[in-house]
């Protein structure tokens, strides 16, 4: 295991990545899909309004990209801090 200060820095960076990812997670589902839907009624994605599309399809695509982006970012972080396997 890496030394104490390095592992603290690793954990702080990890938590930062998690918080940014959670912000995206919240924004696409609860934000665009539910809370902002009435305000964004005029914007259309094909035949659906933006909020409807995010609630039924769009948020799922964002979730997918989000998990793989998180995994890639973490793999890089693991290497930088020498904690990968």
């Amino acid at each position: 295991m890496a030394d104490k200060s390095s592992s603290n820095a690793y954990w702080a960076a990890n938590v930062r990545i998690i918080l940014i990812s959670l912000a995206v997670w919240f924004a696409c589902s609860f934000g665009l899909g539910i809370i902002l839907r009435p305000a964004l009624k005029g914007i259309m994605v094909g035949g659906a309004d933006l909020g409807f599309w995010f609630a039924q399809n769009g948020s799922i695509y964002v979730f997918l990209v989000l998990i793989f982006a998180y995994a890639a970012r973490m793999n890089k972080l693991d290497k930088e801090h020498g904690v990968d396997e």
Partner: protein
Amino acid sequence: MDQFTLNLIVVGITFAIYIGIAIWARAGSTAEFYAAGQGVNPIMNGMATGADWMSAASFISMAGIIALAPAGGYQQSAFLMGWTGGYVLLALLLAPYLRKFGKFTVPEFIGDRFYSTTARLVAVICLIVISVTYVIGQMRGVGVTFSRFLEVSTDMGLYIGAAIVFAYAVLGGMKGITYTQVAQYIVLIIAYTIPAIFISLALTGNFFPQLGLIGSYAPSNGEISMLAKLDSLVTELGFTAYTAETSNMFNMILFTMALMIGTAGLPHVIIRFFTVPKVADARSSAGWALVFIALLYTVAPAVGAMARLNLTTTFWPGAVTGPALSAPALSIADIESKPELSWINTWKATGLLNFEDRNGDGMIQYFNEPAAVAAANKAVADAQKALAEAAADADKAPLEAAVTEAQAAQAAALAEAKLGDKSLAELGLVGNELTKVDNDIMVLANPEIAALPGWVVALVAAGGLAAALSTAAGLLLAISSAISHDLIKGALNPNISEKGELLAARISMAVAIGVATWLGLNPPGFAAQVVALAFGLAAATIFPALMMGIFSKRINKEGAILGMLAGLVFTAVYIFLYLGWFFIPGTNVYANTPANHFFGISPLSIGTIGALVNFGVAWIVSMATKAPPREVVDLVESIRIPRGAGKAQAH
């Protein structure tokens, strides 16, 4: 070849594959039985997680739940976001750390992290309540699918399904289950998407149903979108618009959140991430799981919307090109004579669909019956029943007067209620004549509605069985490993040998299958409600305990135990207040209607608040009591570092 033989062949082939895999993937050690030797490729594990996760409810019911919701299809988006967004939480907050921990069960982590056998046993109780309630529905799903497609009784279907699960789960444990689930995933996703693609092509000209959902309606030559067409038809018939705003945004947010954290807290999903070789694999495997889940979940809303549109245009032939009421409704003569409509009578025979020519005009009018009309119709029926049942020598004059009065009220209600710009009385309507449309029909009858070949129908039967069997197996493994590993090895007999524990695991599995089969044969009357309990409890107990165990070094055993108990009791009591104590009908304190809910929070959504209660209690109690010992802090530090997971093995 007739449909029955075809169903038998396709289902028979899939079952032969599952048994073959069971024999090939026998488990030789507890590591293989509990965690497939921690050597499963992350993509394979993602596929297995997809099958594990997508139950009979996802496969058979979800599209219909969205399509037929009285409040409109948009409000049901909570299921779509909730059952997928939970994987983000799993990938970010739980899976990598629990994999690094490197042991076999969820209660084991809780017991070690909170240095307490009590905490472990509380987690075992939560796990068993969650998983048993969940497995009842799966066993029912197996029985029902068998009886619809293979002409055996529901009970017989259940025995066959239980025997198949027994073969590969008892023999192979997690290893057998994982590789069978991969095969089951392939069967169920093909079965789901093929009818969806054909229907999307027919209605919107788009090959991909996801594009069909936002595409334009083909018979209108692209002048109107599919969703706008659906909205205009259902509102014309008196239903809430399909894309209508939610009536209670706060509750929709809480419900979505409860499903998300409930998903992340379901033990049978979490243990899937113990099977991959490395921490990095646990992260990507959650992504792969979501890829395979999204293949179905992005198609489901399209299936729902298009099936609703198909249903409406079937019963109102004029709706294809104009308003629904621009042409007469579907006639009974057509249902009896036209081969492309034979599915209506096929499914009427199963009780999932029913119609009744209430105004005697030889046609079936499908519309939303206004509440006032429904009440007036019921009053007339009741008055007529009272008159018919009166004794021969009784004074019938007041009863006859009551009938006349009720009929006058009915006539007034029919003259009052409007469909389009005419009243029901002017249209000659008495009430909605499509008297029953079950949610399940939207998927099960889809291939027949779209006039697809017989082998597609057979595939849907095999897909429904694959979805139910794979989820049942995952749940049964979670239950049996909690019993053999956490209860027997962890608490009752810590000195049990590896061989003895493997035998105990197999016996627990066999007993769990027996109990699940018995519950499937004698389902408690509340099978539908208990799913709410399963998600609510997972959200309020296991998810917060795991998250605090990883992200805090300060939460101690007192905090964790009291937090879990507080979340458990709070959530269960709120649900019982509306659904009856222990779901016994008639014992509920309040009627389960939105007007009665505290702050408009439905029992389905309460898990979110339960989780907050758990976090709050755990934090306050931990601050007031002693910090965890040094070795526990070291454990938390070690699970936060990925390196070394491959070697971590627990015996």
